[in-house]
């Protein structure tokens, strides 16, 4: 009898737990208690909690404290998942009306499609004008971080997505020049496969496939048409896109079979340890290569992803000015530091990225970053998909699902149809 009661209680508890599982989906959790409010403080929300990112943030905070000693800086960083956890926490805080004074977000549609669409952000054109940032940032960058002529964030750093890392040793041994075009690339990978290398191109888990895809799409379409598909001016069902998808399907045939089990670091490592010749990954990989003890141009080399020379596919961490920021003046002070030469030169050498400004102090940056700074100043700038510039979160998430299905079934037509449907459902296509 007592046993039964206990059992029943246990089951009841389980049901309650199960029910919680369902309820938690949308229920706003009690947001983390905000730090005790003082009159003059700025609470900055980010996902920079470890490694070079956190160190870079600390360096920039030091600059801020020097310039504004009267403002208390509250670092509200949330760890985990390259920002996915932080963004979930931020969403609950915003829904609860508890906005931080400024938060980090990938510049472009990830911010615009989510927060501007919800009326949460103030334009920051006045900051760009007052501080002369328009003159020192690339002309092709501004439209990518604006909507209807309003700029919505202050980019702090710039990373490049369309970089292909290669093993100089392997290429030299096989008499291959770093490929510039898609055809040269395929020829090089065919030669390597014929020479017994099973997977000349190293790839990792699903998001790295999406990253590879955006660079191949850019290579195949060229910068103008690439921008057009994101703005709804070129149909995703068009033959041009189909050609790009077929090129991507071909690229995948050169990749490793255990890709799904590898992080981006694991995949990048295959290049420096000689298992693969190439890896397409953003230029944060360079910091990783140096961290594990390789020298630029000896352990690893780099070229723009074949077919994308002269184009800089960027992503950027940026900070925003929320509507109704609890400490608006302090937030503006923070943004002023974030956009300043001094602030960016404090942050970027530590983080391993380049400043969004083209007037960074060249003495502070290493060999790769200097080459990236030159390209940033001269190339056509286009935005990254995987890292939030060209598509809003909903659209990107649909494309990611389409990509996952494509990696399972390899069906180019179904992939294209899914991309068309994604643009209609969540993008600018009607």
């Amino acid at each position: 009898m007592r046993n039964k009661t206990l059992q029943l209680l246990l089951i009841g508890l389980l049901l309650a737990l199960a029910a919680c599982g369902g309820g938690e989906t949308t229920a706003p959790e009690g947001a983390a208690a905000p730090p005790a409010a003082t009159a003059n403080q700025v609470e900055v929300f980010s996902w920079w909690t470890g490694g070079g990112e956190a160190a870079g943030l600390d360096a920039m905070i030091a600059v801020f404290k020097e310039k504004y000693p009267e403002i208390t800086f509250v670092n509200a960083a949330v760890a985990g998942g390259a920002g996915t956890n932080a963004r979930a926490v931020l969403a609950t805080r915003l829904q609860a009306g508890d906005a931080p004074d400024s938060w980090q977000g990938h510049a472009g549609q990830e911010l615009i499609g989510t927060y501007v669409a919800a009326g949460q952000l103030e334009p920051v054109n006045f900051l760009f004008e007052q501080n002369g940032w328009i003159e020192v940032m690339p002309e092709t960058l501004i439209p990518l971080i604006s909507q209807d002529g309003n700029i919505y964030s202050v980019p702090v750093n710039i990373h490049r997505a369309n970089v292909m890392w290669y093993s100089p040793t392997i290429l030299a041994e096989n008499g291959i020049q770093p490929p510039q075009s898609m055809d040269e690339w395929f020829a090089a990978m065919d030669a390597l496969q014929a020479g017994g290398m099973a997977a000349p191109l190293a790839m990792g888990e699903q998001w790295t496939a999406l990253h590879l895809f955006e660079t191949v799409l850019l290579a195949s379409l060229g910068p103008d048409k690439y921008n057009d598909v994101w703005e709804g001016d070129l149909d995703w069902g068009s033959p041009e896109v189909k050609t790009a998808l077929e090129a991507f399907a071909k690229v995948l045939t050169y990749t490793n079979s255990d890709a799904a089990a590898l992080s981006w670091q694991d995949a990048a490592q295959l290049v420096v340890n000689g298992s693969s010749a190439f890896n397409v990954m953003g230029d944060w990989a360079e910091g990783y290569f140096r961290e594990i003890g390789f020298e630029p141009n000896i352990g690893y080399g780099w070229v723009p992803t074949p077919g994308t020379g002269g184009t800089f596919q960027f992503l950027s961490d940026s900070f925003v000015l929320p509507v109704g920021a609890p400490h608006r003046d302090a937030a503006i002070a923070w943004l002023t530091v974030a956009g300043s030469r001094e602030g960016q030169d404090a942050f970027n050498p530590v983080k391993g990225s380049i400043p969004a400004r083209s007037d960074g102090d060249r003495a502070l940056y290493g060999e790769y970053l200097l080459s990236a700074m030159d390209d940033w100043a001269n190339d056509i700038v286009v935005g990254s998909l995987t890292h939030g510039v060209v598509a809003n979160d909903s659209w990107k998430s649909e494309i990611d699902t389409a990509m996952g299905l494509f990696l399972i079934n390899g069906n180019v037509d179904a992939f294209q149809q899914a991309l068309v449907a994604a643009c209609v459902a969540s993008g600018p296509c009607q």
Partner: protein
Amino acid sequence: MRYKTEQLQGFALVAPSILAVLIFVYGFIGWSMRVSLSQWKGLLPDYTWVGLQNYLNLFKDPRFHIDIRNTVIFTLLFVGGSLVLGLLLAILLDQGLRGEGFFRSLYMFPLAISFIVTGVVWRWLMNPAQGARLSGLNLIFDSLGLDFLISKWHTTPQWGIAFIAIPAIWQMSGYTMALYLGGLRAIPDSLREAARVDGASELQIYRRIIFPLLSPITLSAMIILGHISLKVFDLIIAVAGKQLPLDVPAIYMWTTTFDGNFYGRGAAIGILLLLSVAVLVVPYLRYNIKQEAEL
């Protein structure tokens, strides 16, 4: 009179938790249902009524088809595997061997760690790299000359999800063993003795007497394991990250809600998960309550 005061006191004591459960469990279930019938997509709530559209779209969604298939495969293997292994371990321990306490704790230990830890450890063990980069279990197989056992594990096309059941069984079979062991100990020795006197073989004793008497335990274990299985999320994320071949409803719910801001769709998946668990648990609860009433 005194009885009444006691009742009141009792009620006052449980009232806060009843209230909390009403709000935080049933209230939010209700709210999730409302959201699942809305077109909410984006940061701000949008309760525009769309009826069952989110559900209908899900049933047409190729990703959700993968989710259902994966959940079914995982549930069958995980629940079945844990029951069989748990029963086997319990029977072995029930033979009155020395050091029973030691083995009992040993088999129970995996239960003490979280699915995340289990997942990370098995991620290393089930490393699918081939060729010169063999590692984990594959490397052991290779060095033992058992090359035919080398596996692509969870990256096996189509059947990757089946391998996720291995760490889950590893973790939960000890718990199932404990349930069965309790059941076995509750069977009086006199029943076995009587059967032996009547000339039943050991096998017959298990088939005709022990297993039927254990069936309530099996039912409880199936309910407990089954609902864990339907909600599996952390284990898969820890072993393999977010990728479609190993997608399950809970992962889809999380990515679509927090990566894609499709709150309506996420809530619909959540409600479907709740319903699937309820289908499992509610008949069991009713059965139990009925039995309770009869006693």
